[in-house]
């Protein structure tokens, strides 16, 4: 009896699982499928390609337009992630460990920024960046990315930092280490998993951005892939860019899939730990 119900329950959960997996994967598989179709079969509406080809990938890697955008995407996202995690870790350490005036204010401000409508910044940043001559540069994108990634970084990291066994820090201080040394030598290694998780979340955020990327850039110099996609024209002006767009889309989806496959547990814990404190 008991065995039977668990089997039935398992079956029911299994069906629900399948539903979720299908729901989540179909759009991704679809664009991947399109990217492997030949121009002739591109518009046949078949979910699975009738003829497979890698031509679309060859096309995009042959064009400077995509390669340049990919370099921009990777560079900008990595730099912004690095800076946001370092600044976020400093602030999160202070928030979770130290007593100082203005702590609540900082938490409040970062919450406000997390909810801030980014489009409200587009017009002033556009004008300010033109004046500062950083419009259409890496820096011009990195700055807003850091800003909007910081709340995420601070929240996630302070949640992680609160789980660290801080007695070790005391022990280190008793052995004569300063607060700064205790941070660098003892806490930082313990915090590494949290830092890594945060870095993934921040990277995904920067990698994903579209609004700033199309508003604060105007040339290939700093346009990232999501923005470049909407300017794609295939190999020649008159060619339908669908295949190329899909191939480029798949290329920038690969890192996300890899992150998710290898670090599912970390990403889930990072996202939920940041939220649960409220």
């Amino acid at each position: 009896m008991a065995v039977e119900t668990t089997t039935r329950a398992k079956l029911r959960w299994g069906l629900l699982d399948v539903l979720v997996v299908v729901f989540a994967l179909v759009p991704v598989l679809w664009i991947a499928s399109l990217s492997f179709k030949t121009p002739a079969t591109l518009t046949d509406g078949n979910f699975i390609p009738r003829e497979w080809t890698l031509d679309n990938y060859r096309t995009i890697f042959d064009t400077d337009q995509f390669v340049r955008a990919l370099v921009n995407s990777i560079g900008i996202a990595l730099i912004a992630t690095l800076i946001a995690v370092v600044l976020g870790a400093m602030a999160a350490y202070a928030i979770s460990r130290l007593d100082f005036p203005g702590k609540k204010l900082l938490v409040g401000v970062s919450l406000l920024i997390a909810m801030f409508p980014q489009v409200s910044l587009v017009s002033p940043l556009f004008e300010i960046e033109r004046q500062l001559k950083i419009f259409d540069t890496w820096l011009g994108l990195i700055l807003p990315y850091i800003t909007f990634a910081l709340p995420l970084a601070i929240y996630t990291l302070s949640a992680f930092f609160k789980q660290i066994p801080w007695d070790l820090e005391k022990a280190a201080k008793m052995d004569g280490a300063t607060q700064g040394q205790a941070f660098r030598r003892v806490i930082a290694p313990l915090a590494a998993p949290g830092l890594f998780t945060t870095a993934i979340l921040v990277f995904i955020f920067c990698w994903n951005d579209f609004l700033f990327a199309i508003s604060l850039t105007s040339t290939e110099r700093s346009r990232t892939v999501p923005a470049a996609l909407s300017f794609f024209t295939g190999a020649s002006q008159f060619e339908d860019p669908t295949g190329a767009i899909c191939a480029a889309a798949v290329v920038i989806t690969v890192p996300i899939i890899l992150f998710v496959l290898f670090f599912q547990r970390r990403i889930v814990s990072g996202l939920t730990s940041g939220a649960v404190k409220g």
Partner: protein
Amino acid sequence: MSINATPTGADVAADETSESTGRHATVPTQRGGRRKPPLSENKKAERRLGLLLCAPAALVMIAVTAYPIIYSVWLSLQRFDLRFPDQREFIGLENYVTVLTNEFWWTAFGVTMLITVVTVAVELVLGMGLAIIMHRTLVGRGLVRTSALIPYGIVTVVAAFSWRYAWTPGTGYLADLFSDGAPLTERASSLAIIMLAEIWKTTPFMALLLMAGLALVPEDLLKAASTDGATAWQKFTKVMLPVMKPAILVALLFRTLDAFRVFDNIFVLTAGGNETSSVSMLAYNNLIRGLNLGIGSTMSVLIFITVAIIAFVFVKLFGTAAPGSDDGERR
């Protein structure tokens, strides 16, 4: 450096080490000129380090948001079209009158509101279901969680292209689903597709936030309810929902404000055609396509105010359930 770690007066080193008095007395009146209980060297060092560690993050956040938003208000009070820079002048609230009496603005506002309300409502239901599946499934938990993270992680523009081609007649596998013509060329079906794309993309995020709340539901409580003969629905409404309330509110607040910013999906799916522009889309078009900084900034400010109102209403309606309100000290 305007950020000063130590109160300047009356802090000659003394042995006053009582943590609580030091903490509470000095926070509100940092430079109020009143007598403060002196701080120990240790405490002072801690404060200095705390402020020092937070300063870079705080400075960046403020420099990139506070200053531009003020500048934005200033720009919104001017006639400022980059195509006619000579005509730049201060015109008071004229831009606001222009925008607020413009039917495009109100159409976009209505579209944005509709998308926000519908998507958040649907996501709450689906997200709750997904959260329960991710939390309780007996088989393949890792698989479900991994799959659910893909919509969360994927670049919105990529997903939007996938949906666009799926609904393009001839190319797409969904195009013929509702028979006639091209769904992305009609208003109602375009809006439905935009909402579908939004829901697909952000339900997992909602589910993850809800799952955090689900993890707080004590297992014993559910068992006790079962022994008392509660049905699954009763367990859900009487036991789980009350415990999850804070998590639900946080998820709702975040998703509502996020949904209000909807931009990427509309840009790719319809480019705002057939009156499907959101306010973000409209502001972008006025700024980047129209190069009208005055009007663009006015819209920016109005969007900012709307978001502030929504956030305020949430916090007022639901008390201090918002994160940050009681965050600092809690573990």
